[in-house]
């Protein structure tokens, strides 16, 4: 059975949304595209969906980046740590979840907010 890879984007988002520890610290999770319309109150997490590479019926590589925003890096770094814990290698069925680069502590100049990101690659034949 072939499932659309787009469904994996929903599944990936839901892993964080279903992490009680993460949602307790950061109750507001959004898709990064929503930042064009409004900036939520901090702290919040924004999921950026990156390119999907690979051939159909071969291994697909989906890329995601969680951006964690807050008023202090203690909260942000705690969110990064909880995010790491929420996504073990087998977080998604029939996939391999690889945790990638954690960015430096940065200021998003456009939003005027402190932030840090963690990148993921999901490998799948689904």
């Amino acid at each position, binding site marked *: 059975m072939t499932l659309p890879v787009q469904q994996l984007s929903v599944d990936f988002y839901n892993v964080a949304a279903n992490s009680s520890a993460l949602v307790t610290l950061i109750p507001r999770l959004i898709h*990064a595209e929503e*930042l*064009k319309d409004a900036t939520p109150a901090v702290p919040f997490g*924004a999921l*950026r969906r*990156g*390119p999907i*590479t690979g051939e159909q019926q071969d291994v697909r*590589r989906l*890329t995601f*980046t969680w*951006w964690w*925003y807050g008023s202090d890096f203690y909260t942000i770094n705690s969110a990064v740590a909880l995010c790491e814990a929420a996504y073990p290698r087998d977080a998604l069925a029939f996939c391999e979840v690889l945790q*990638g*680069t954690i*960015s430096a502590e*940065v*200021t*998003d*100049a*456009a*939003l005027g907010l402190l*932030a840090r*990101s963690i*990148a993921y*690659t999901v490998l799948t034949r689904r």
Partner: protein
Amino acid sequence: MIDDTQLYVRLNALLELIPEACAAGLQAEAGAAQTDMQDTSAHGDITGATRASYRAFVIGGPHTGAQEAESGLEAAIAAIASAVTDHGGRPASMDSGIVLGDDDRGVLLTSYTDYQDKLETEHAGQKAVLAPTLQAHATAFTKAAADGSRAKLT
């Protein structure tokens, strides 16, 4: 008694080939990554300086990156100098801070404008190019390094 001196000499000679064999593999994939960056649709162009100055190149050992840095910086300077609109961004070049061992080889993805950091981070990376390209090519870079050394060993 077996004299294995020559065996060790030849094995050492072989090991010395590996870093450059990996570099050759990495170079090919770096070219593909650079093309992807320069073709990005993540951001548009006001001066075109960032797009023109995207570079992906091998570093480590004899690969200082000086030539690529000069090329990237010159591309940014030329684009801004010929642009009709000045958005205030400027060409920029700085030390990457990356220190590699003698036998280490890597690929550096960068551009030569002073607003690249903003592009990578603003609005949760809305206009980011360097990080997503690295994500997309990470496995291919590893394979390219392995293929390069394998080609030398066979």
